[in-house]
């Protein structure tokens, strides 16, 4: 089975990993015991590229895997424990997916939506705006109103 070795530095949550240059490829990898396709173990030659890689591509399965661990075995062999990168393995399908996107980058931001994750300080800024005209006199200028019965002639 062919396995291509890479060294990937992207976060696991990156859908499209930057694979960089292929470090090495082998065609003689063997499946080690019965294994899940999502977390397979491969029996490979114990070589520097095995321990210096952290990511592999298995063309036959059309899947990408993180190398989670390598167990050295006698006889110059090694068991390479892997876990599937479901994002990279399904990259094109994910990008073609229609979905509700609730959070995203700045360029898709809707400022009118409340962001409940944004930290809020309880300290409040107080701004006072005075109406330009004072309806009531600050000093003096009072008026008296005498209300009488009748009186208007």
């Amino acid at each position, binding site marked *: 089975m062919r396995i291509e070795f890479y060294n990937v530095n992207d976060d696991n949550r990156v859908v499209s990993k930057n694979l960089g240059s292929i470090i090495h490829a082998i065609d003689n990898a063997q499946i080690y015991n019965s294994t899940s396709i999502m977390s397979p173990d491969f029996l490979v030659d114990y070589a520097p590229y095995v321990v210096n890689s952290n990511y592999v591509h298995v063309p036959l399965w059309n899947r990408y895997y993180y190398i989670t661990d390598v167990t050295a075995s006698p006889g110059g062999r090694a068991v390479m424990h892997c876990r599937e990168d479901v994002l990279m393995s399904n990259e094109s399908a994910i990008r073609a997916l229609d979905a509700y996107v609730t959070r995203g980058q700045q360029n*898709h931001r809707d400022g009118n939506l409340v962001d409940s994750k944004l930290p809020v300080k309880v300290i409040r800024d107080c701004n006072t705006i005075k109406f330009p005209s004072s309806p009531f006199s600050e000093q003096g200028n009072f008026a008296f109103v005498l209300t009488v019965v009748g009186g208007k002639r």
Partner: protein
Amino acid sequence: MIRSDFYTTDQTTTSGFQLTGLINTIKANYNEEFGNPYMMGYIPFDVFPDLYKPHSVEWISESKTIIAKSLMIPQNVGWGYAANLNTTYQSGYFDLYEYSNQWNRIADNSDPQLRFINAGEIAKLNTTGVINFYNTVIKHDLSNDTYVLDTNNRQHTNIYVKQFMDFLNGDITLPFLINGNTVDIECITDDDGIIIYNDGTNDYYIVITYFACSQDTGNVQNSYRNLFTPYFKYTASKNDDENTILFMPHTFGIGGADWTYRVNSNGTFDGHGAVFLSNYLFGNVHDGSYNVDGMTNNEWRRFGNTFIVYGSARYWVYCSYTIEDLRTILTLVNKYKNTVQADSYLNGYDTTVSVAIFDDNNVPKRIRLVDTYQNLISKLQPWQMVSIDITANEFDPKDIPPYQPTPGDDDNNTESGDKVPNQFGRTVGVTSNFITNYLMTEGQISKLGEVLWTSWADDTVTMDMVNNFYGKFHDATGSWNVSDALQFIVSCRLFPCSLATLVDTTQVTSIPIGTGAFALQCGTSSEPNFFIANEATAILNCGDIYIPREYNDYRDFENTKITAYLPFCGSVELNPQDVVGKWLGCTYAIDLFDGSCKAFIYTLSGNDVGYEGAYYNVAIKQGQCGFLIPMSATQAGQVASRQKVDGYTDGALLYQAAAGLMESAMALGGYSDANPVSGFNRFVTAGTASTTLAAQRLGRAGISAPSTSGGSGFTDFHQPASAYVQIRRSYYQEPLQYEHATGFPTNAQRYDNLSQFTGFVICHNVDLSGFTCHEDERSEIKALLESGVYL
């Protein structure tokens, strides 16, 4: 010294061109409703061929495409280097060159080492092409501390940027200045778009300009070709309609080394003869020669939407707009982007816009920590490459800038033209002669007391008052006939404002009482006249205030508390969504009969100022601003009671006070001894008498029991006399890399293709129907998409 290592490669990559925009730059300074107006754009394709048109060459048969294509082919142009001086500059990647005796490319887009120059660290360009490195973490301009090492470990401090566009894919190469055997790169790549700068005053201007300048290398040496392309060729007014979009820049001019022209109101350059139509900035620029400020025969050539001035100097062009104009621009861009025909309003231009800041000398894109920009810089978020294709945004009514009428005048009179709702223009006249309000001064009130009491208590002096009341209100035998003067006085109130200017009045010289046969002469020598208030209410206009936005997003409304303080009415909390970003008016209506008042706070959010429909009351608060002046012991006691006993309403007070007066008067009248002193004593002691008859009499006099309202008495006079609004907003702290780590709520909230997104996204309730993978894989994909992935 901060070192940046770049390495050369032999590979030149062609890619799109994109300008850097600023995120969250200074929008707080102009209260922009628009969400993300500071975007970048592509240079209009129309610009391209004109830039390279030699002075002496007429392009006749070649299409723009052919011309452009020819210019993209690497070639020796005669001064020792190939045309691959072009620079790729996209998404944070660009080519770097240095010049010693020739141009040396030291890095380009394909160099992986260059890729670490992410958007947050990308340099800003100034007009000379020198890269300014701006570290967003420490917010420091690294330009003077940055150098570049090439693969031979040579250090380069003069770094130039060159650009290479893929015009076939919509990008346009920008011009560069060629000067004899040397080459300077005019980094004008960021000289287009909307530019906001502060002129050192309180105004921020938005400058929209494209300009290019290159020196001819053809037959005419030392001649410059100056290219001007207005981004918007129309004038936009707020009342635009579909067919007549008008956009008149605040100023427009073309500047050279030491001169600047402005287009006057007629659309012509002041005194220089170049004719422009005001509604089409460059639409009628004619080819020809013009004398410009002593420089004769500057040749003007118009090519499509651009024109070129050939002359002996480099010029620059600018158009500046007010902040209000920016709103209009952005709204129109958003509105018409997808609706207008090419060559109509936008003439095929890509209408994405770019933003930069001018410095004090109107040099674009020089981002400096200078004083005039201190406030702006303080608001700068990390530089980031942003690209919002506003074509994807449908026109949303919420993007329409709110109507903002100018404030009304500041006096407290309701006059014609004042921006107050018509509801306050109604008159509430006194429709009967049962009751009358007299506006009196303090001196007149004092005189009234003198007339009523001082003479009355002295039976050795025969005063008119005594004669009148004793003689006329009693028959010859001294038995009761009709009540005395106090019977006709309902109340006397003190108002903390000058009412004479607020209500329609009729001037009189005495106060008739009862049937009018008798009149109280209370005028003083200095104030002989009284004023009858012909209206039952007085209207006081407090003027208008604008409640500003702070964040221009939901934070203006969330965790925001807005309280209006209204003198004599107390405080009332306002709904931020009703008032933020709007003008608020405040008007009082005062009831002269019972002293109550109502404060109305309303928004002036409509276009039809003057109609009630243009105003929306956001709060109405009842209060009491007319305070009862005790005229008898009974009243004094009742006033005191009101101040001591909660819930004792002013209306009841007035009712009972008047009743007490009436009863006192009746008791006095029933007293067989006509001695006025005794009568007065009866006044004092009659306060506890039955109010039944008084109530009946009041009813017959047309007085209904006044409405009730709160009031705390004369202590209210010590409260602030001006109305104001307090806005309390919480601070929001956006952590560094918040966009990257958390993301923002998206305007998507919709079913959309993920290919539309880049960077961090979180999806909701993902439906993976159609995915050809195993169930466990499907579950994991779903979980990851719903917890956040980077696309």
